[in-house]
C-alpha cells in the first residue's frame, strides 16, 4: 500500500484515518441511515417480486380472474403493479437519499478532506 495523502500529519496514515472514521459515531449514523433504508427496501421489493413469480407459477386460477368483464385480468394488473412499485421505490429512494443520507456523507467527506484519487489502491 502506497497510500499517502498530501495534507495529513506525518504520523497519521490515511488508513488510520479511515479506520478511526469508520468507528466514529457520525459514520455509524451515516451507515445506519443508508442501510436502514436500502436493506428493508431490498427485502420488500424482492418479496413482492417473488410473490408475483410464485403466483404466476402456482395460482393460475387467481391470476386469470378477469376485471369487470374486460380482457384485463389479475395477472396483468399484478404485472403492471410491479412497474408501479419499481418507479415508486426509485422515487422514494432518491428523495430519502438526498434528504437524509447525502448531508451526512457530505459532512464526513469534508472532515476527511480530499484524499487524492491517484494515491488510492492500485486499480
Amino acid at each position, binding site marked *: 500500500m502506497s497510500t499517502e495523502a498530501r495534507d495529513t500529519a506525518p504520523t497519521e496514515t490515511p*488508513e488510520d484515518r*479511515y479506520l478511526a472514521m469508520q468507528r466514529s459515531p457520525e459514520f455509524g449514523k451515516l451507515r445506519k441511515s443508508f442501510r436502514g433504508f436500502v436493506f428493508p427496501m431490498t427485502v420488500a421489493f424482492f418479496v413482492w417480486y417473488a410473490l408475483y413469480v410464485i403466483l404466476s407459477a402456482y395460482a393460475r386460477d387467481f391470476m386469470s380472474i378477469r376485471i369487470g368483464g374486460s380482457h384485463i385480468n389479475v395477472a396483468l394488473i399484478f404485472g403492471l403493479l410491479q412497474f408501479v412499485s419499481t418507479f415508486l421505490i426509485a422515487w422514494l429512494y432518491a428523495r430519502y437519499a438526498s434528504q437524509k443520507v447525502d448531508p451526512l456523507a457530505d459532512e464526513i467527506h469534508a472532515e476527511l478532506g480530499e484524499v487524492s484519487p491517484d494515491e488510492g489502491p492500485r486499480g
Partner: protein
Amino acid sequence: MRVLAAEAATGGSTARTLTIILFLVFVAFTLAITVWASRQTKTATDFYAGGRSFSGFQNGMAIGGDYMSAASFLGIAGIIALNGYDGFLYSIGFLVAWLVALLLVAELLRNSGRYTMADVLAFRMRQKPVRTAAAVSTITVSIFYLLAQMVGAGALVALLLGIKPGSTFMGMDANAAKIATIVLVGALMIIYVTVGGMKGTTYVQIVKAFLLMTGALLMTILVLAVFKFNLSSLLGDAAQSSGKGEAFLEPGLRYGVEVAGNATQTFYNKMDLLSLGIALVLGTAGLPHILIRFYTVPTARAARKSVLWAIGIIGTFYLFTLALGFGAAALVGSQAITAQDRAGNTAAPQLAAELGRRFLGGEVGSATLLAIIAAVAFATILAVVAGLTLASSSSLAHDFYANVIKDGQASERQEVNVARISALVIGAVAILLSIFAQNLNVAFLVALAFAVAASGNLPAILYSLFWKRFNTSGAVWAIYGGLISAVVLVFFSPVVSGSATAMFSKSDWQWFPLSNPGLISIPFGFFCGWLGTVLSKERDDAKYAELEVRSLTGSGAH
C-alpha cells in the same frame, strides 16, 4: 398476410433499399461520432470511462442503450406475440432488477472503483487471483451475450432483407448474407470500441436509445389507435387471433407449463419459471457491461441519477413491449409470424409493416415503416455489442494485463493499447464463434449470461461491499463457483441437448431438468463465497474500513 415473404415486388425492394439507406445513415453518423470521440480520448480514464464527463441523464440514456438488447426488443415482442402473457415476465424481471443496482450497487461501486468491476472486488483483496477470476467471468458473460446478439443479427438480416432460401441478394444467398452480417456487425463494434473508446460507445448507445424509444413509442401509439385506445379490446383481439382464447392473456403457455398427467414435468416446469425469474432480477447488477457505465459520471450522485433515468426509460420501453407483442398477435397473427421465424423474432418488424400499410397507405407505407424499424433493430444490436466488447476488453487490459501480468506497473498508454488490441481479439473471436453457431439455437445465452452474473458476480460484489470478513478466497470461490455451476448445469440442461429445440437437438447428454440454472447456481454462488471466506484466515479490517468509508462518502473517489 405474409408481410415479408410474399409482398409485392415494389414494396419488397423499397423496404430493402430504404432499410439499407437508413442503416448506412446510422452507421455513417455513429462512425462520425466515433472519430470525433477518438480526438477527445487521450487518457486511460477517457478510454475506459469516457472521462467521467457524462451527465446523469446522458448516462441514463446510454444505460438504456446498453441494456435494451435485441432480446428485449425483438425477443420479448416475439414471445408475447406467440405465447402471450408469459413474455411479460421478462419485461418485469428485467425492470425490477434495476432496484438491486440502484439501492445496493451503483453508488457504492462508483465511489470505490475506477474502471472495471474488479476494481471493487479486488479493493481489499490480493490483486492477482481476484482480478483473474473477475476477468474470466467478465469475458465469459460478455461472450455469451455477444454470441446471442450476433447470431440474432445474422438470422434477422436474411429475414429483414427478404432473402428467401434459393434467392440471392447482391449475389449472396441467405447463408452468405448471414455471415456477411455477422462480420459487418463485428467489424463495426470493433471500430466503435477501438477508435471511440467509452466516449464513442456511449454516444452510439445514446443515439440508439433515442431511436429505439421513438420507434417503439410510434408503434405503440399506432397499435393503440387501431383499437381506439382501448386496452381491453386489443387484448381481446390478440387472444382471439392467437387461437388460444383467454389462456393467451394468462401465465402458463410458455413458462411453468402444466403437463396433464405428468406431475414430475409440471413440477420441473414450475421450478424453471422460478429459476428464470430469480436470474432475471438478480443478474442485471452483476453484468460487467452495465457496471462499467456507472464510472462514466463524475460522482456517485450522478450515478444515482443515471439509474433513476434508466429505470424511467427502460420501464417505459417495457410497457411499450406489451403493445408491440399483443399488437403483433392481433394484427399480424401467429401463423404469419411463425412462417417468418419460429421463435417470433420478426414479430415487431412484421407489426411495423402492417401498421405502415394501415396508416401510411399501401405497400410503400408498409415498406417505409418496416425499413425504419428494421434499421432501429440493427442500431439496437450494434449499441449492445459495442458495450459488451468494451467491457470485456477493459477487463482483459486493466484487470489481467495491467494488474496480473504487469503487477500494476503498466503505463496508461500501454494499458489503453492493450485494451484496443483486446477489443480486436475479442471481436474476432466473437465473429468466428457466431459464424460457427449461426445455425444453432443460442437464444438461451442471454438468460445464461444473466444467470452467471447473478451466481458469480453479484455475490462477490455484495459481499465485498457489505461483509467485513470477506476475503480473497471468498471472492475467488464465489466467482468461480457461481460461474462454473451455472455453465455446467446449462450444459447438461434441455436447452443444450436432449430436446427438439436444443442447441444440439440431435444429441442427448441432458440430465439437469431445468433450462435455467439460477435456482441452484445463485444460492450456490453465495454459499461458495461464504465457505471460501471462512476457510481462509485472511482478514483486513483496515482495508474494509477504507472501502466502507470511501464507498459511502465518496472520499478519495476517482
